[in-house]
């Protein structure tokens, strides 16, 4: 699993490099774009995801002690928080962004000298959040699979490797968001 996560680090690497490169050449435009993002939703989503990661890890510690019932409760909690994240991100935030014409297309809302930089910022924003969202969906499927197997009493204090492996993936998705959050919402905010 750690080998897979190492490849995932390199999968997200070019996205972060694109942010460095694009912002370096278009700082004012990039910051103008960042100031249009929904800071409160982004911050709440960060808290939701960190809490979801905590709850899942608590579930791992419970199954280490052989408590399958508490593992299921923790997995359900983590799964629901993951769903809240996706709803806030795509159901609320993206919808607002589309309504405000912030999708980088011909009717893009930001005009003036910083239009090109802001366009680049929103390409990064939509691509970054979409790729992260896809990873979240995969994570939700995996956590659902753990719940299904735990309900069939397949895990015990002696065997819980799949629970730990899915926990690693879930925390990794959390880590990616921890990087995306300042890049999208914070760095351009007070500039």
């Amino acid at each position: 699993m750690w080998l897979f996560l190492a490849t995932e680090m390199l999968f997200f690497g070019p996205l972060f490099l694109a942010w460095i490169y694009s912002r370096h050449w278009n700082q004012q435009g990039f910051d103008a774009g960042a100031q249009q993002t929904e800071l409160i939703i982004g911050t709440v989503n960060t808290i939701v995801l960190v809490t979801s990661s905590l709850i899942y890890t608590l579930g791992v510690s419970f199954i280490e002690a052989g408590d399958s019932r508490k593992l299921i409760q923790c997995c359900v909690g983590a799964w629901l928080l993951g769903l809240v994240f996706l709803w806030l991100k795509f159901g609320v935030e993206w919808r607002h962004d589309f309504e405000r014409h912030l999708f980088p297309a011909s009717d893009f809302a930001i005009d003036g000298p910083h239009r090109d930089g802001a366009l680049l910022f929103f390409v990064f924003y939509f691509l970054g959040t979409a790729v992260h969202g896809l990873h979240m969906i995969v994570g939700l499927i995996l956590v659902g699979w753990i719940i299904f197997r735990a309900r069939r009493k397949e895990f015990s204090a002696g065997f819980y490797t799949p629970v730990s492996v899915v926990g690693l993936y879930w925390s990794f998705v959390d880590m990616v968001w921890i990087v995306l959050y300042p890049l999208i919402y914070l760095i351009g905010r007070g500039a």
Partner: protein
Amino acid sequence: MTRSRHLLLAWGLLIALLAIEFGASFLALDRTARPLILIPAALMIAVVSVTFMELRRGPEAMRLFFAAGLLWLCILLGLGSLDPMTRINYYVLTTNLK
């Protein structure tokens, strides 16, 4: 200290770092200095990897893969950033010199 309490403390630390990062974003920093806001995020990643992902408790091979991933990510970002960070643009006079 029980593992649950340890995890809850780690969560508290993560929320505190998030609050610092959030507050720092409102400081009137220079545009080029603003990426310093990423420092709390880097600390948050360290906390998640050590506590939630149990990097400290796991076998050597696990830490090796983590270090290798981090190293190649640093090489990717470092080499990729060299061009924009070091390039000097010489502006060409566009008016007619005749």
